């Protein structure tokens, strides 16, 4: 029971800056969330919103130019504080990641089977023979046809969809409790994309994993997520259950994104486009980062920190227009947690 209702990951006030000699980029500006075992959080955002960087920070894959602050707690350990040797142990076993382009996740000079078996040997400490058996089971589990032959394939010998399946097998080889998915279906054709989404959903249920699924595609997010977080300029602007966010979208940015999907828009009808372009994050935003593009912006929007309003049990919106009876800054984080655990 405790494993079922247990918290798989708790992220607290995560901020990421990239500092070079010329400038500082404020990529992520204080995001917090918690995820239960078996829950899928979809993080929806456009390019530059900080969604992929968040995942990389959680895996500790960012270069030294990145300054990361906050906490990422998985199984009692703060991933941002543990030594690298410990982190190597946790990667794969506790937390694992899949990427948009599987070619970059595989080594081109080893076969798929060797790479999966190597991971198993390293983390489980079993014999190579057992590991190979495990690799075969994994390929069958991700529904790769004629899995035995496929073990001997090099990454370039597989099609895009098959490679993506193989990468999922590699990521799941040590049964992590948390899977980070960084746009894993974006480079695929629609028919293949749907196959991979269904596979991920099935595996996630079977293994009871928590998943953070990052995507720019609203449809994809709706297919996989239990909860949604809409990200803009390094902040969550709206969070809630998938249904809450879609049916009762409140933040002007969320509304704009939903309008831009073209579903249900009559051909020839004028699109309600969001004007302008996403901001360059050269300064730490004081007020709402979306204000320059927002049709409902008021003077207070750019000047003062954005308050958080509660719209439902777990539905939270960061917008001056939504009232903001729930305070600012610090309370956002706790209320997300509370909303989540009630």
């Amino acid at each position, binding site marked *: 029971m405790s494993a079922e209702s247990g918290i798989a990951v708790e992220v607290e006030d995560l901020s990421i800056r990239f500092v070079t000699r010329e400038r500082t980029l404020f990529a992520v500006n204080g995001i917090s969330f918690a995820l239960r075992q078996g829950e899928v959080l979809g993080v929806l955002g456009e390019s530059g919103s900080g969604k992929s960087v968040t995942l990389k920070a959680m895996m500790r894959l960012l270069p030294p130019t990145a300054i990361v602050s906050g906490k990422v707690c998985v199984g009692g350990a703060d991933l941002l504080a543990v030594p690298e040797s410990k982190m190597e142990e946790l990667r794969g076993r506790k937390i694992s990641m899949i990427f948009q382009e599987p070619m970059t996740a595989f080594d081109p000079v080893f076969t798929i089977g060797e790479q999966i078996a190597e991971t198993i040997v390293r983390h489980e400490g079993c014999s190579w023979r057992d590991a190979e058996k495990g690799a075969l089971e994994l390929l069958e589990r991700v529904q790769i046809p004629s899995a035995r032959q496929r073990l001997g394939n090099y990454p370039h010998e597989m099609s895009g969809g098959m490679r993506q399946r193989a990468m999922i097998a590699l990521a799941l080889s040590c049964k992590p409790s948390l899977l980070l998915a960084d746009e894993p279906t974006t480079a695929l054709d*629609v*028919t293949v994309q749907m*196959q991979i989404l269904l596979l991920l959903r099935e595996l996630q249920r079977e293994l009871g994993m928590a998943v953070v699924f990052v995507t720019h595609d609203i449809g994809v997010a709706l297919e996989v997520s239990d909860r949604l977080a809409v990200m803009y300029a390094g902040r969550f602007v709206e969070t809630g259950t998938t*249904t809450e966010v*879609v049916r009762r979208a409140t933040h002007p940015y969320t509304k704009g994104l939903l309008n831009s999907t073209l579903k249900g828009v009559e051909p020839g009808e004028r699109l309600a*486009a969001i004007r302008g*372009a996403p901001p360059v994050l050269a300064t730490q935003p004081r007020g709402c980062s979306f204000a320059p593009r927002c049709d409902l912006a008021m003077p207070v929007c750019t000047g003062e920190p954005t308050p958080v309003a509660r719209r439902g049990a777990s539905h939270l919106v960061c917008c001056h227009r939504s009232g903001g009876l729930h305070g600012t800054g610090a309370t956002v984080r706790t209320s997300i947690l509370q909303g989540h655990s009630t």
Partner: protein
Amino acid sequence: MSATVKSALREAQSSPFDRGGPQQPLIAVEGLRKHFRLKRSLLDREQKVVRAVDDISFELRKGDTLGIVGESGCGKSTTARLLMHLIAPDAGTIVFDGDPVNTVRGLSLREMRRQMQMVFQDSYASLNPRAQVLDIIAFPARIHGLPAARARERAEELLDQVGLRAGQFARRYPHELSGGQRQRVNIARALALGPRLVLLDEAVSALDKSVEAQVLNLLADLKQQLSLSYIFISHDLNVVRYISDRVLVMYLGQIVESGATKAIYAAPRHPYTRALLSAVPTMDPERRTEVAPLVGDPPNPINPPSGCRFHTRCAFAEEVCKRAVPRMSVVDVSAGHNAACHMVDETSGHSRRGSTEMAAS
């Protein structure tokens, strides 16, 4: 607006280049083909041929937008490049407003390209990184003989037309622009010679959703102001539904279904079109997709399957599908709706021929 008013308007707005009149298709393509032969290695028994575009025919009416959809490797981008003669077709004729293209009596490539321009997906790769925006847009006009000063004036007008203030953007380099702004520059350059047809090859696919909507609005405005026609190539079925009057669905180098957008999206008849449309992710979190509409990846276009090329992935495939190439059969005359499937063809011998029901799907 009724169809007659629309066509009358179209006639009134038509440019002096409009030679064929409103009934003449702007572009008519017949039997277009491009096969790429791969290098044969010592061990290959047979020659490998990529049948990128294999005998396709279609027409584009004046003022229409024709959408071309399909998965990667289906030949949609090759088709656009063949139309522009960026690569030479192996066979087939292209007739532009009554004039055959690239024949002795017909339209020369240079004249054709004045009237037909293209916008590519990668907005950065298609701009010269060392040239300023204004010079990039003025370039085509200068090549076609306009004096430099006049070409620049025209470029400034074009910048305004695509929603970029000339004073602010004229002197910038491509790397100083956002993706959406760069694509606007590409559109402005495509319009520099006053074309009548613009080929948009995944032109909004790389843009963020919020910016994509802006560019789609811009394309709609320009189409009306300049009485343009578009060929819109995309893998995004929602965008194609929104922007197109007619749609071609391609699979492994061939057209499998074509017709009015409404007809195709409301009642697709080819099993591939059905699968493609039902693979679009849901917009309703309570009605998620439960069954994948197709298994497997699209086959390699090298040496494609015999008969109907879709038979290897089709739930309704029978003997006839492996053996015989299906012919384009009429589904609905008024919608110009055709499909190349043995189930639509009354004479094919397929057990489900003529039935509109596809129980399993």
